[in-house]
């Protein structure tokens, strides 16, 4: 359904997308994980048609996505901004934004009522949106993107700054959209969201996809090893030097920053050896955590950074 090839976009000297390529099938829900500056929002903006001056091709349902403005009728966008009119009611907002698409006039109202039920805003449909909570506004923001039943839904961090209940509701909407045959790309910082919602996960950094697949596929990248996270008062270079000769099949240094380092170990018996080495070098260790392999450890291995960095 969506085929992106060698998409490249730069802002001056900064490369936001670096020969980015991706395929997406009908009904597939792709979670795009990446730290700030990874290029997620740039990708969504280009696919939305609001950012130009790029190279590469984007084909959607066999046609150039940007060749025909009417193709936009098949795209649904949920931006990070709460982009609707606060002074209007939820129903009026849906009617206006839905009206910008080629939805038959008779269907818009019916569809708007259905969506308000779906996002649990039916009881307050006629109330000005300015009275809504943050979570309610996020749900409305999502509903606007779905009103015209798009074939491709793009969501840019749709769960930012909302309570758990609203987050669960929005993720449910995304899962349902995928189940109904809509291809979905959504960007997030939250690992748990993609773990529970997406049929495929892509990890991107510095404008490129580093790895993609199902959760199991990605975890296999780290293997069955445990992750040891060590915190203390040490410099990254000193820590790396201290564990250098331990590195091998049984111990792998995943990341090292000043005061925090992560290692993958195939056997927990390796941990005392590591600690012994650190004490020999007089490195002050304040805390040690042992974690099972997860998406977070995959992300850490691939990017060398925590997702919140």
């Amino acid at each position, binding site marked *: 359904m969506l085929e992106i090839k060698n998409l490249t976009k730069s802002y001056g000297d900064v490369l936001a997308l670096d020969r980015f390529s991706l395929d997406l099938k009908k009904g597939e829900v792709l979670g795009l994980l990446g730290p700030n500056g990874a290029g997620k929002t740039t990708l969504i903006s280009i696919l*939305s*048609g*609001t950012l130009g001056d790029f190279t590469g091709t984007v084909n959607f349902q066999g046609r150039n996505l940007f060749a025909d403005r009417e193709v936009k009728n098949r*795209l649904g*966008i949920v931006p990070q901004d709460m*982009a609707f009119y606060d002074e*209007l009611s939820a129903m009026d907002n849906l009617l*206006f934004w839905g*009206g910008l*698409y080629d939805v038959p006039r008779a269907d818009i109202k019916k569809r708007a009522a259905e969506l308000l039920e779906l996002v649990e805003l039916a009881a307050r449909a006629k109330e000005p949106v300015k009275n809504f909570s943050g979570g309610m506004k996020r749900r409305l923001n999502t509903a606007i993107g779905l009103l015209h039943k798009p074939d491709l839904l793009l969501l840019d961090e749709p769960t930012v700054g909302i309570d758990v209940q609203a987050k669960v509701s929005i993720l449910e909407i995304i899962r349902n959209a995928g189940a109904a045959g809509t291809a979905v790309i959504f960007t997030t910082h939250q690992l748990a969201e993609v773990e529970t919602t997406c049929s495929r996960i892509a990890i991107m950094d510095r404008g490129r996809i580093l790895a993609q697949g199902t959760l199991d596929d990605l975890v296999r990248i780290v293997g069955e090893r445990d992750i040891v996270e060590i915190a203390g008062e040490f410099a990254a270079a000193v820590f790396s030097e201290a564990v250098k000769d331990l590195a091998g099949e049984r111990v792998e240094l995943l990341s090292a920053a000043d005061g925090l380092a992560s290692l993958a170990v195939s056997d927990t018996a390796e941990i005392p050896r590591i600690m012994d080495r650190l004490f020999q070098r007089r490195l002050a260790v304040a805390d040690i955590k042992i974690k099972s392999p997860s998406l977070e450890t995959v992300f850490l291995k691939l990017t060398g950074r925590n997702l919140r960095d």
Partner: protein
Amino acid sequence: MRRFLLVLGNDVRRHLKSPVVILIFMAIPLFMTALIGIIFAPRTEGMELSPIQLLLVDHDKGLASKLLLGSFDVDQMKKMFQVTVTDEAEGRKRMEKGKASAMIIVPERFTLDLLEAKMTVLTVVKNPAEQFLPDIVEEFVNTMAVMLSGAVQAFAEEARGIRAMLDGPIASFPWDKLGPELGKAQKKMVAAEKVLNPLLLGLKEEETQAAGAKTRFTQRDLFSIMLPGMAIMFLLFIVQTLMRDIISEREDGKLRRMMTTPLRPMELIGARLASGWVMGIAVLLVMVAAGSLIFRAQWGNFGYFLILGAAASFWTAAFFGLFHALVRNRNQAGAFAAPIILAFSLFGGSMMNAEAMPKAFLAVGVATPNRWFIDGATLVREGKFPALSLLVLVGSGLVLAALAVPALRRRTWV
């Protein structure tokens, strides 16, 4: 076209759902007009001074003091003066408390001294806290003194006769001698009447009838002249505020979202300019209605005025379309818009009459919509078609729109 109408309708609906800003901007010119009109308009009807509070102390209680007191009792004087007869101690207390404008003290023997043609003095105590009312009393008493002095001198012989009769007790008053004395006085009055009546000099009231001149400049005329200037000034403020959406929607992501839909940039730009225009006309119409109802202002031919208002609104929408395409953000728009509108209003004649403006102001004013709208409104009020004003407003409005559209087109690429 469907999407153009959808955006236009949505803009109008939104503004009507949050009308506070529009209402405030519409109330300000009406309030300012009322204030200026009340202060500066000529009083033509029902605008009388309240009566002057006057205290009168009568130590004489004689014929002349009664005459003086009686002079305040005629209709004309009753409108001007509210007289309270009191004793001197109480009168002075009230004056110290500022309860009256002036106090006249009639001395003892006032009547007798007059009849004997002796010098006598009336005292006028004035309230220093009041500016001109005590002076009116003083002038009035002066006039009365002159009249009484004149009367006494004219009837000096009769007065002496009557004075002599007053020396005895009242029981022995020679009533039979009073008749001849009064008879002599009557003869003098009849003789005087022959001289004074008919009066040789009459007074005729007339107003100028010069060509085009109005017989009287009323408060209503002042409102009619002021309101168009105020209306165009606040039309600029209102349309500027409404069209600030162009920037705010860019900043809050709504423009980006709109551009992800099949809506074309030109449809959006057209709708934005059209909504500014439509709202401008609506605002002007409400101001016209309010001006007519509240101030009974005269606008002239309504059709002509509607065309003029539509032209001014078009100019305003085009100007602020361009303006918002050029400024970077809401703060810049807010910072620049108010000085520009105030400069338009100052040089264009919204703040002062063109006749009172320096020549340099008039020359600059030609470049403002205010000047052309006010000139056009004046012509419409006189029953003429404002052709030149329309030509200038529509012509320059089209130029502004032609500049605004490509500038806004660049702005919609988010």
